[in-house]
């Protein structure tokens, strides 16, 4: 059954209003495909029925499900490698030296999907800074999608996921095999706190952080939304902090706020002073 353009437009507007994600008409196929999966989960006959239910009595239940279905959650462990090498060799040693022992270093993975990004940071800390007392570094992982965060907290990965970006030495050091899945040990899991957090809700304050990983999420937003998010990241970031974006992302929407710096083979962004 063909989904009406009114329903497609409803979804487009909902996802933009709630998550800032832009779905042009060229993304109608994506709306259809993702909501067809949701329809099956909900035991509804079609995408049209999902939308009709969401526009009626089941709005509170279904609208968030629709938004989540249209997020793209692809991620890997140690994605792009170099930002993690920069953390290990430069950023973390530098910030630890600049902070007193009672000031925890705060690392925020701001669109953490199923957890690979914050867990990679946790494994890196455990491996390369083994003597750090617990609590010296705090890692926060947030995402807009609750169901995705549930998977992050569970820290159970399928073979296809464990294959991606994770050094084999860390896999055998920190994961246990469970059927065909691999589960992360509780020691690493407990280093990361997960919270639901929507980057585009205007009222919620951004968590203060020394290092922000905001990777592969701005690409889904329009220019104005990107600018708004980056301004708030700038305000929440320590003056000597670091922002890491995805490979295809820049701070062009807020040209005066950040300075681009090269560290090893990666680029990151530091607050430009004065703000």
């Amino acid at each position, binding site marked *: 059954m063909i989904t009406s353009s009114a329903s497609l437009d409803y979804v487009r507007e909902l996802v933009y209003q709630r998550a800032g994600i832009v779905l042009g008409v060229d993304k109608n196929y994506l709306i259809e495909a993702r909501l067809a999966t949701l329809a099956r989960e909900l035991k509804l006959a079609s995408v049209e029925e999902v939308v009709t239910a969401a526009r009626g009595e089941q709005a509170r239940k279904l609208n968030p499900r629709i938004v989540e279905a249209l997020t793209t959650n692809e991620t890997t462990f140690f994605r792009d490698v170099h930002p993690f090498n920069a953390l290990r060799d430069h950023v973390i040693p530098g910030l630890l030296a600049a902070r007193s022992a009672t000031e925890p270093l705060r690392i925020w993975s701001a669109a953490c999907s199923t957890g690979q990004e914050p867990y990679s940071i946790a494994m890196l800390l455990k491996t390369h800074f083994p003597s750090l007392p617990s609590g010296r570094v705090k890692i926060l992982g947030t995402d807009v999608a609750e169901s995705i965060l549930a998977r992050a907290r569970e820290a159970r990965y399928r073979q296809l996921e464990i*294959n*991606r970006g994770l050094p084999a*030495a860390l896999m055998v050091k920190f994961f246990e095999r469970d059927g065909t899945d691999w589960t992360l040990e509780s020691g690493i899991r407990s280093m990361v706190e997960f919270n639901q957090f929507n980057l585009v809700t205007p009222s919620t304050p951004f968590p203060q952080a020394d290092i922000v990983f905001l990777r592969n999420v701005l690409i889904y937003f329009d220019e104005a939304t990107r600018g708004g998010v980056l301004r708030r990241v700038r305000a929440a970031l320590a003056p000597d902090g670091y922002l890491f974006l995805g490979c295809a992302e820049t701070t062009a929407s807020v040209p005066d706020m950040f300075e681009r710096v090269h560290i090893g083979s990666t680029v990151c962004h530091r607050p430009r002073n004065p703000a």
Partner: protein
Amino acid sequence: MRAIVIDDSRAMRAILRKQLVSVGFDVIGEAVHGADALARLKELGVPDLALVDWNMPEMNGLEFVVAVRSNHDYDSMRLVMVTTETEFDQVTLALAAGANEYLMKPFTADALREKLALLGFEAH
């Protein structure tokens, strides 16, 4: 960047070759088992990378890794196991024998590319 591909499946060798070429490798040789690979290496010199299947006739991948790592001429060669063996103990065994990375079949082209990036091999 030069590589060899060691796998008894012709189809798998073709897939791996194609993926290596796409990230900028020159695939200088192929072998159908470990002993074949050792012989090929004598002719070819030391490549930067070998992709190594585990289950092969004559000499399996683990035996190949052990043999290569007992010869210091090959110290600079990175060894990546690419195999359907996915048990925890097997991964541990391969790493202990001197494999540098481990990729479980089935895998995607991205997964191979990411493993190679971990070893410093990147397309430019």
